[in-house]
């Protein structure tokens, strides 16, 4: 096997590791053996072979695909310059003969491609538009590639209306058919954008070297994105991951619980089992331990700055509710309200969050975070919420707008609770800066930095007893 190929493969796996995907040596060996069995001229086969050997979690697939496209590019250079495919192969209306760089013509071509949904034709088109529109000379003799130049010139989103006109007849407007068509078009536009971005990365990688581009190409995994900086797409991805995450946590807990010795002798089952061995109790049976289940009370700041974090944590708490005897949730901005009822079992969590922000009574004065007033109100209005079996979680960045902190009621709450933690989505380095009352609160209860889903996962494991 060519040494260059193996070097390339190892480099690729290193880039994957840098992107946070763990790959063991055994898996590298498998992949190398796989390299010897598949047809290397078939690029997609190679991709799937590597994926089968080293990828063990679907969440890593996007990062893997991005890096694979950089390290094993489908073509080199500008393909139209040495066109292998004769023009006869090009589809009519694809614009092979039109003047390069005329965005109006290209938009027309793009519109037809989006209507048609032919992936291969789309890919050829993307290569040629990136070549024509995506380049910019940053300095004499140096060039760079930008996807936004292409996307701005063609602005595919603005084609939506005319595409829908072409797909739908008059009476189909407004109902199910339009919704479905819209969905189809959106999917194709997204596909087009992804293709453009991949093509730009490929050209960049040729100019600057693959290592350089791999470092910046991969979007961080959703579980490592900071809650405070998460985009809408990140949050949607996180929401999708709540249930897998909860399942993972639940499994680990069950495994940990199983490791402990089982409980008292189950006399009845032992005697029953002894009948099979002639009345001699060879195997003893034990009653399982009853796991200790704490009550969870979540008190969370849902003001704009930290809402994403609060929503995610609430969803996780509800996904894990079987691990607790009871979960009660309270939300506040500058006053507090109970939101437990919005989360009915079997109900839709996304709806619950929307209803919570619309219906719960969270604003008392001006709609800026007021931890002091909220904590005082909480202690006054729900005196029975926190008891000796409760784990109390407070979620928020403790940015109090320089108001009173309400330390006294908080202290008595913490004393009453079995455990109390404060989860702060801000990086530890910012704690105590500006209007952050972190220092005062940290004296009363333990404050934990929970910036992303991974840290939250670690914390939940600590919280739940074996």
């Amino acid at each position, binding site marked *: 096997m060519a040494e260059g190929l193996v070097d390339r493969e190892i480099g690729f796996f290193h880039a994957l590791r840098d992107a946070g995907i763990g790959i063991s040596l055994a898996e590298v060996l*498998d992949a190398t053996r796989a390299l010897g069995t598949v047809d290397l001229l*078939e690029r997609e*086969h190679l991709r*799937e072979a590597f994926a*089968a050997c080293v990828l063990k979690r*679907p969440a890593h697939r996007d990062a893997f695909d991005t890096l694979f496209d950089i390290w094993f590019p489908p073509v080199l250079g500008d393909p139209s310059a040495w066109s292998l495919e004769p023009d006869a192969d090009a589809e009519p209306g694809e614009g092979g003969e039109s003047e390069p760089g005329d965005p109006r013509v290209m938009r027309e071509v793009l519109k037809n491609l989006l209507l048609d949904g032919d992936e291969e034709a789309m890919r050829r088109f993307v290569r040629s538009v990136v070549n024509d529109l995506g380049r910019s000379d940053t300095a004499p003799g140096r060039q760079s590639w930008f996807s936004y130049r292409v996307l701005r010139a063609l602005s595919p989103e603005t084609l939506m209306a005319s595409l829908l006109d072409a797909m739908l007849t008059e009476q189909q407007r*407004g109902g199910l058919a339009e*919704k479905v068509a819209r*969905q189809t078009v959106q999917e194709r536009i997204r596909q087009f954008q992804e293709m453009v971005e991949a093509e730009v990365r490929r050209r960049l990688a040729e100019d600057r070297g693959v290592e350089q581009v791999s470092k910046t190409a991969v979007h961080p995994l959703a579980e490592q994105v900071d809650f405070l900086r998460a985009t809408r797409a990140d949050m949607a991805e996180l929401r999708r991951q709540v249930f897998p995450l909860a399942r993972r946590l639940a499994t680990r807990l069950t495994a940990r619980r199983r490791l402990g010795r089982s409980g008292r002798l189950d006399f009845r089952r032992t005697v029953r089992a002894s009948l099979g061995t002639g009345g001699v109790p060879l195997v003893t049976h034990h009653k399982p331990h009853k796991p200790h289940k704490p009550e969870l009370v979540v008190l969370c700041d849902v003001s704009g700055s930290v809402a994403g974090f609060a929503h995610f944590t609430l969803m996780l708490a509800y996904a894990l509710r079987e691990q607790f005897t009871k979960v009660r949730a309270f939300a506040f901005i500058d006053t507090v309200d109970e939101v437990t009822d919005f989360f009915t079992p079997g109900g839709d969590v996304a*709806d619950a969050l929307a209803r919570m922000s619309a219906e719960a009574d969270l604003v008392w004065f001006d709609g800026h975070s007021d931890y002091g007033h909220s904590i005082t109100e909480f202690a006054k209005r729900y005196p029975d919420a926190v008891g000796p079996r409760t784990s109390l979680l407070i979620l928020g960045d403790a940015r109090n707008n320089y108001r009173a902190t309400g330390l006294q009621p908080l202290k008595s709450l913490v004393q009453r609770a079995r455990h109390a933690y404060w989860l702060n989505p801000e990086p530890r380095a910012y704690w105590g800066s500006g209007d952050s009352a972190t220092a005062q609160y940290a004296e009363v209860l333990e404050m934990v930095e929970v910036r992303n889903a991974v840290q939250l996962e670690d914390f939940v494991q600590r919280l739940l007893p074996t």
Partner: protein
Amino acid sequence: MQSPSFASVDDVASRLRDAGYLPDGAIATTVFLADRLGKPLLVEGPAGVGKTELAKAVATATGAELIRLQCYEGLDEARALYEWNYKKQLLRIQASKDDAQWDEIHDDIFAEEFLLSRPLLTAIRREEPTVLLIDETDKADVEVEGLLLEVLSDFQVTIPELGTISATRRPIVFLTSNATRELSEALKRRCLYLHLDYPDAAREKEIVLTRVPEVAEQLAEQLVRTVRAMRALELKKSPSISESIDWARTLVALGLDTLDEESVKTTLGVVLKHASDHVRASEQLKLN
């Protein structure tokens, strides 16, 4: 080393196609590798995308017999691997009470004759081509994974009284999982991994057309697009391929030849199985 069952990736694809399963590139390549490298293949994905079907199709395509181990909570060694037939052993001891020496009996009662073979051992001992399907691995307890490790990495089973039994002919092994829990790293490392997801529109349409040949192409196209629109909503349980197929059958049975608001509304129960999903879908797809 036994001769591999498939010649190339394209060979896998065409033979699976003949067996009535439409694979995409990822599926064909991974199955090919599982066969070539002699490694078990872990197939994960949402319910109803054809994980079990894949194992069945590979068995048909290679002319192998399918041996299936259905996992469930409480599955143990005695059900998965082997068990000593102690009733028969007792009989043997009682029958030779008077004359025989203990040593003799002792060797005798732990012989092949008293061994009850369960799916894993059966698959390993078979001489003919075999596909071993360990279904819904995630439903089994964590201990079972430990049990699988020896079987899957070396294709051997150690029985203390008999010694180690190695496979004469390696079976092609499929493990399926709905990811209701994370399988252990050790198990994953020993397997090739295939994540089966909802197929792209063209392939899904083809699947619907092969499975329900009575359905018109136009309708299949509409149906697939509508199902994809539903998957884009944040539903509790997105409809998968089996639901698409069921839906196509339902529409054919009802004699409907186009999908409009009315027909979707009346047959929504075939596709969506949660009340909250119904509400959400009718709202978002403007069925009312």
